């Protein structure tokens, strides 16, 4: 009888510990995605990284100037990123210079 109680108590402790483990949640790691060095790099990094990783940006592949302009505009118009109108071309110029396909359109 006594042994049974001890075993039950031990099981309860184990059970509560495993439940506790499930409740810890997760911690997401930070990863640095290297940026091409050039004019506008830090400004562009600031604008993009307010919301998302640089990896998310460069995974669009090499694109036209019009594509990058449309993307930056979308971040402002659709996703409400607080990017100033006068800063748009800074990002577009940097993105096209280093992640462009050479085409304007």
């Amino acid at each position: 009888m006594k042994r049974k109680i001890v075993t039950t108590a031990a099981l309860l402790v184990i059970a509560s510990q495993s439940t506790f483990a499930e409740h810890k949640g997760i911690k997401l790691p930070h990863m640095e995605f290297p940026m091409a060095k050039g004019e506008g790099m830090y400004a562009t990094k600031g604008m993009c990284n307010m919301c998302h990783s640089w990896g998310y940006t460069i995974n669009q592949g090499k694109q036209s100037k019009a594509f990058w302009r449309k993307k930056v505009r979308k971040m402002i118009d659709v996703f409400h990123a607080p990017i100033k109108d006068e800063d748009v071309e800074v990002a577009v110029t940097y993105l096209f210079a280093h992640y462009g396909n050479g085409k304007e359109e």
Partner: protein
Amino acid sequence: MQRREFFKTTAILAGSAALTNVDAAEQVEITQPIDNRPVADIAFPQKQPLITHSDRPPLLETPRKVFAHPITPNDLFFVRWHMPLIPTYINPHAFEITIDGLVNNPLRLSIDDLKKRFEAVEITAVMQCGGNSRSAFHPTAGGIQWGVGAMGCAKWKGARLKDILAAAGLKPGAAWLTLDGAEKPVYNQTDDFKRALEIDRITDDMIVAYEMNGEALPYLNGFPVRLILPGIYADSWMKMLRRITVTAKEPHLHFMEHAYRIPDNDCECELPDKLYPKTKPIEKMNVKSLIGFPENGARIRKDTEMIVRGVAFDGGDGIARVDISTDGGATWQEATLDDGKAGRYAFRAFRYAFTPTQMGEIRIMARATNTKGETQPFAHEVKWNRGGYKFNGIDEVRVEVIT
């Protein structure tokens, strides 16, 4: 409002110019997707290191070799989120799903309620991002440049969506569901990632899953519950599902109206300078197969048996056969399929034993055909679309035969 009108006008103008010459595809090239990207040196929570496209939000791709097997382990399963703020702590005892809108009894269901009040259903189903293999499209289609691994197949367990809706009691006229998960944008004004599902299209196979391969779902795959829509691309398989709202009218949602859409024409195709004005949701998956072994660049000894392994699937009609070519598509031999007991929505494993007798590079290809006779085109025959969706070109790996 002004914006929407502007888009409408643009679409109509484009419509009159488009579609005169969809076959003139000189400027377009479809290749094999980017392959053999290395996995990251950092593992995300509850995951092995995967091909990491972004850390915020996490975008993780499964390496090719995992597809030598028909079940994708939870720690190797791909990850795709839309919004940068993902809950990193959820108390499964406090978590609730709200069912509201056009229902007689609005519900708040805990995970325990889901398990106890509803019949538990198990279904093995492929989950694939509509943009899987997008890096095959040239000119580059906008979006994550996935290689082959934005897909996986798991055994899901949960409660039928139909049963949950029945418990809530649909009111007359109920026709649409708005699905909302717990991910959040950085700015409050930004549209939440929500999806819509037409009630008429709900089948018995669609479940709200609380288990994945016999375990709780990993956080990054939607812990504690996600929607499972077998046969349909993953864009509406809402993760961390917390609210289902029933309406009579189709809801207007940014991510329904501007994302995961393809040209609404027979070829589902267009040209970069002649975009087709009318689009439709990607929805049902097309027939596809992938070689898990060997991988590109593998070296194999001459006169030594190797077993080509991989998986095939479609939108639920079922795979009828897989053919393998070891000469770059000139001749084909039928592979052996598994028993198919995992069901018509699961990966169907195939194997093909092969002994190379000549040295040098060989090109191994896999081509699946489903029960309706639908099959895969060569990659170069796949048609372009601006979103880079639904790539299902015949898979190819190049291996080197050595002495």
